[in-house]
């Protein structure tokens, strides 16, 4: 078994995307490998210009909740999702995009940030990653 973390990024909520990126960059920083499998609402965040556009999973309040949380995050100097994603890639993280989601949602490769995506796959791609991981999460 490889020292590896594989996370299914199913949610497109801003706060959950933070969890996925913080855990995965943390794993890479501590010497593990890491893979992120983006599917459903999660994959939507890899559409060009959509990374920071996710709602808050709770208390979104038509955007007011998100605005307040973002303000608090800014005050606490929390890194942006974009920065975390760039760090994830720089430290050797792997990103897999779910092809079925692309089909269902009518997302074409050119709609996605192709420069970040290492592989386009289906459940088999996730299982191959997960079976050699000692951490796997569904977020």
């Amino acid at each position, binding site marked *: 078994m490889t020292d590896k973390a594989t996370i299914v990024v199913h949610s497109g909520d801003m706060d959950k995307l933070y969890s996925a990126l913080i855990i995965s960059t943390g794993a890479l*920083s*501590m*010497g593990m490998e890491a893979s992120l499998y983006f599917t459903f609402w999660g994959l939507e965040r890899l559409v060009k210009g959509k990374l920071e556009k996710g709602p808050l999973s709770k208390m979104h309040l038509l955007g007011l909740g998100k605005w307040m949380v973002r303000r608090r995050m800014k005050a606490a100097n*929390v890194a942006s999702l974009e920065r975390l994603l760039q760090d994830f890639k720089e430290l050797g993280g792997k990103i897999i995009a779910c092809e079925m989601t692309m089909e269902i949602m009518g997302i074409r490769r050119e709609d996605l940030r192709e420069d970040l995506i290492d592989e386009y796959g289906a459940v088999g791609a996730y299982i191959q990653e997960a079976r050699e991981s000692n951490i796997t999460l569904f977020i």
Partner: protein
Amino acid sequence: MTAHPAFHEGSEPRRIDQPIPCPQPGAAEEVYGMADIQVDVRGETCPVPLVETRKALRKASPGDTVEIIGTHPASKKEIPMALKALGLKLVDIQEEGDVWTIRIGI
């Protein structure tokens, strides 16, 4: 110590060609002057100090000393954990008020 061509701007880990000013007089000065790469993550929060440490360690060469200066309390515990997992040597940890300095041997 001579200037290194790989000089990075901003929050990027940077090679330094000047000894780092020593916060304490005396014997520690020599130790402080030895760092080859310095990462300043003061004011940064989770996971930035840990991530920037890893980025700096990847850029370091064998024999280098990497120095991380930060204020995030949890990172002071996590960075040594990461070093243990990576099989790297923790040279020392110093604290002055809220600021900690971790020195790593490659």
